[in-house]
């Protein structure tokens, strides 16, 4: 695609005079309350034109605050910011003329149509006449939204909303484009398309700031600013940061036996500072100046091999934070039956029609005891329909859903008592204290008296909640919220656990902690079903089903899916490659 953007003569000259720096940030501090901790503390950095600068960090690190400060939407408590030579405090109006800004929820009017949104922002930014017609044509082609012009923005999918938001922010060819978490709630396919669009832009000299909680996106950036707890941990080329762990990253692969047990054993070694599951393999990072323990010490069985792996940005990030917190899980669940042949979750020809639209078409799968099963798929593909049917939230049009042998349609209450459920966004009662939440969920699952007290005592001990019991759930730090949500879901010791995007938008450390809980429960025979479009989460699954356009287009272990798309050009496909490849294959087969 060849797209040329209107760059006025003066802007062009300015960019030429100072080709590198678009934004200068000097000793910037921002506190919201005089007594509280600052959201940003003494940040000094600069942002260059013609490249993507990643603003990376976990939720609450100060990414959005920095974005808003750069857009002149907030006043710094101390220090100053200059955008294209304009001060954001005294010359905010001039700043607004040269930037494009896409806030977290895309800033779209959901009750206006695609074209109405575009027209509004074109008027506001003074893009009129011939210039408007040309820009609209180009942007509609660029974002592939041409067909959807009359559709209300609220009726668009997440990916399309994001493209429209981007189009609105780009109307007047900004010199600086600020994108605040553009990839939240967007599936891998849309995410790739967005990156493609952004690369087109930087080719024309635009400076792009992209904030994200997903560390794999940092690798796409020319420079990153890693924020953590209001401070910049690292600024510069992400490859430099990744290089800091070169030679310290390993993969245990082959016939490794119980991968979860291996991970637990490996993490007990002081040398190992980080370890995650990666499909059938286990990825380990060792501390600086440490040597990798022997296979036996790691708990790896015969036949497995330990090979050096290419470091990822995330490895370096976790290493920089001192590695993964190593706490011992005290969870004592009732040991589940070790009979691996029984099928605690069975979906038989699940079909759901909404009017003439078939949201789920004849989907079947079984989940074995002690297995983590993933439902993958792009937004709107039907995976949440399937998930809701499996939870008993949606009535089936045909087929049957069984949990621990009980039919969700025939005995819903009894079947639901056998499952634990954790929703995507934190959905406990924020105004109730931790202990009131625990009390309620224990009661809602029919526990009372001594049984209830025991159950609460058990999860409080297991998840270290004792110090937070009187705190309102809404005011907890994210990590504690996750623990509380999980506590509430498993208090009644369900044999089956359903998780809906449990760690989306969560920082890597909290995510590791969460999955260590899940792994420990799986080791005790609990069966887990996860729905997600994040590959990070999918990597933890033993098997995944790929749902697309209401159909189950592929099912198998992550390796099996990767093998399906392995070609000469792509000898080592990632799970994301597999995801995108299989979806495209399906589209191709249809036409």
């Amino acid at each position, binding site marked *: 695609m060849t797209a040329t953007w209107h760059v006025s003569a003066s802007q062009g000259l300015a960019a030429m005079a100072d080709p590198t720096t678009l934004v200068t940030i000097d000793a910037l501090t921002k506190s919201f309350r005089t007594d509280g901790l600052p959201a940003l503390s003494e940040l000094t950095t600069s942002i260059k034109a013609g490249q993507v600068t990643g603003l990376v960090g976990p939720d609450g690190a100060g990414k959005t605050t920095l974005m808003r400060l750069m857009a002149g939407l907030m006043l710094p408590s101390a220090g100053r910011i200059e955008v294209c030579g304009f001060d954001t405090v005294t010359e905010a109006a001039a700043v607004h003329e040269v930037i494009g800004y896409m806030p977290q929820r895309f800033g779209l009017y959901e009750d206006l149509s695609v074209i109405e949104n575009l027209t509004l922002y074109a008027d506001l930014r003074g893009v009129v006449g011939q210039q408007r017609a040309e820009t609209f044509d180009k942007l509609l082609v660029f974002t592939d939204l041409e067909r959807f012009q009359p559709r209300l923005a609220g009726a668009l999918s997440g990916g399309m909303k994001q493209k429209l938001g981007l189009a609105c922010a780009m109307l007047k060819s900004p010199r600086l484009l600020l994108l605040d978490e553009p990839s939240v709630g967007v599936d891998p396919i849309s995410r790739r398309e967005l990156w493609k669009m952004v690369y087109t832009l930087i080719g024309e000299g635009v400076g792009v700031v992209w904030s994200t909680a997903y560390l794999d996106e940092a690798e796409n950036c020319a420079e990153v600013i890693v924020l953590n707890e209001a401070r910049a941990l690292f600024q510069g080329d992400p490859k430099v940061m990744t290089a800091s762990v070169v030679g310290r990253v390993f993969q245990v692969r082959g016939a490794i036996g119980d991968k979860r047990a291996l991970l637990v054993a490996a993490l007990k070694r002081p040398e190992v500072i980080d370890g995650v599951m990666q499909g059938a393999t286990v990825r380990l990072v060792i501390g600086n100046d440490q040597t990798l323990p022997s296979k036996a010490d790691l708990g790896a069985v015969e036949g497995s091999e330990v090979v050096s792996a290419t470091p990822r940005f995330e490895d370096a990030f976790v290493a920089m934070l001192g590695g993964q917190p190593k706490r011992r899980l005290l969870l004592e669940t009732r040991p589940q039956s070790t009979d691996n042949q029984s099928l605690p979750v069975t979906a038989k020809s699940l079909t759901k029609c909404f009017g003439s639209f078939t949201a789920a078409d004849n989907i079947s799968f079984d989940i074995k005891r002690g297995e983590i099963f993933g439902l993958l798929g792009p937004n709107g593909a039907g995976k949440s329909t399937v998930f809701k049917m499996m*939870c008993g*939230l*949606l009535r089936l049009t045909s087929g049957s859903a069984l949990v621990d042998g009980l039919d969700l349609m025939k005995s819903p*209450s009894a079947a639901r008592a056998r499952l634990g*459920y954790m929703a995507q966004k*934190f*959905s406990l009662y*924020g105004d109730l204290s931790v202990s009131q939440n625990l*009390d*309620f969920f224990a009661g809602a699952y029919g526990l009372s008296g001594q049984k209830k007290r025991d159950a609460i005592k058990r999860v409080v001990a297991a998840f270290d909640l004792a110090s937070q019991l009187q705190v309102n759930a809404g005011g907890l730090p994210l990590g504690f919220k996750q623990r509380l949500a999980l506590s509430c879901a498993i208090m009644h010791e369900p044999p089956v656990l359903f998780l809906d995007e449990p760690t989306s938008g969560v920082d890597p450390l909290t995510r590791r902690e969460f999955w260590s809980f899940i792994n420990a429960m799986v080791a005790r025979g609990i069966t887990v079903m996860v729905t997600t479009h994040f590959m990070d989460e999918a990597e933890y699954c033993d098997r995944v089903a790929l749902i697309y356009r209401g159909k189950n287009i592929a099912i198998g272990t992550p390796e099996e899916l990767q093998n399906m798309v392995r070609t000469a050009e792509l000898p080592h496909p990632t799970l994301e490659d597999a995801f995108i490849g299989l979806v495209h294959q399906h589209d191709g087969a249809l036409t």
Partner: protein
Amino acid sequence: MNWIRLLALIIKELLAAFRDPRARLALILPPVLQFFLFAFAATLEISNVPIGVLNHDWGTASTQLMARFERASAFSEIRRYGSVAEAQVAIDRQDVMVVVQIGQDFSRTLAAGETAKIQVLLDGRKSNGAQIVNGYVSSIVTRFAIDYKLGTAMTQASEIVERSWYNPNRDYRSAMIPTLIGSLTMASVLMIVGMSVARERELGTFEQLLVSPLQPFEILIGKAVPGLIVGMGQGILIALITVLAFGISLTGSALVLVVGLVVFLLAVIGVGLFISSLVSNQQQAMMGIMVFMMPAMMLSGFTSPVQNMPAWLQPIAMANPLVHMIVILRGVFLRDMPFSLVAERLWPMALIAVVTLSAAAWLFQRRTQ
């Protein structure tokens, strides 16, 4: 039904209603404010208003009549005007609601034993107030005429002996405050019940409830009971304030009052749950509550009697539980209403409760599947 689950849900609902500072404010501030507004501002009484006089007569009779106006408690002061034009300006500007016009031969005519005429000019823009003021003026003038005829030395027998039953002083506050037991509890209960499901939908906790073993009708009961508890508590509190702080005695039976309150609250809860199961967020719930509550309050008979409504509107008013409750409340507080008469108003409320509760349950079942 599983009592453990239900109890947990009820406790949670009560905690949720009172722990969220916003919800607490929405629950406590309006009733307190409305209580004071109703008790002190919602009055149709006319007292302490100035009276205008256009007196062209200098005789003794008119002077004596003036003195009577001056003494009357309904009027705060006498404003004298020189001409009709001046009086009209005063009425136009709403300085006075009434001007009594006395012709120049008033005293002479009376002294001659003939019929004298007094004109009363009233501001019809406020027809209700004007009629009441007219009543005041007429009774003062009539009394004066009788006394004048009989001579002040004789017994001051008046022609019409007037009495009010049930509320001898026709005190607005006595008539208004007992009705607050109905209207204020209705407002609070609608807020609690109408908002609760919507709030959970918005926070995403509703699905969490639906995947627990709680059954839809248990959730519905769990949402209804806290409304009943809060409504009963509030109703009894207002009843106590009515009796203890405002000195309005309960002439009827307290038991009848409680029975009436329970049936009334069930009807209101039915409406609240119906709204709740219809909407998907708090904003819509708020709108739904307003659209129901405004007519329900206005057409309840607390400002103007139901019998004044046009004939086609009266059957519709019968579907408003507050109409019946206000009759019961004024009945048991002021007029010692026997149970047989209370029962006439109980069954329509019970019918409303049955209809709305089952509609809500049906809708709720449908929407959660």
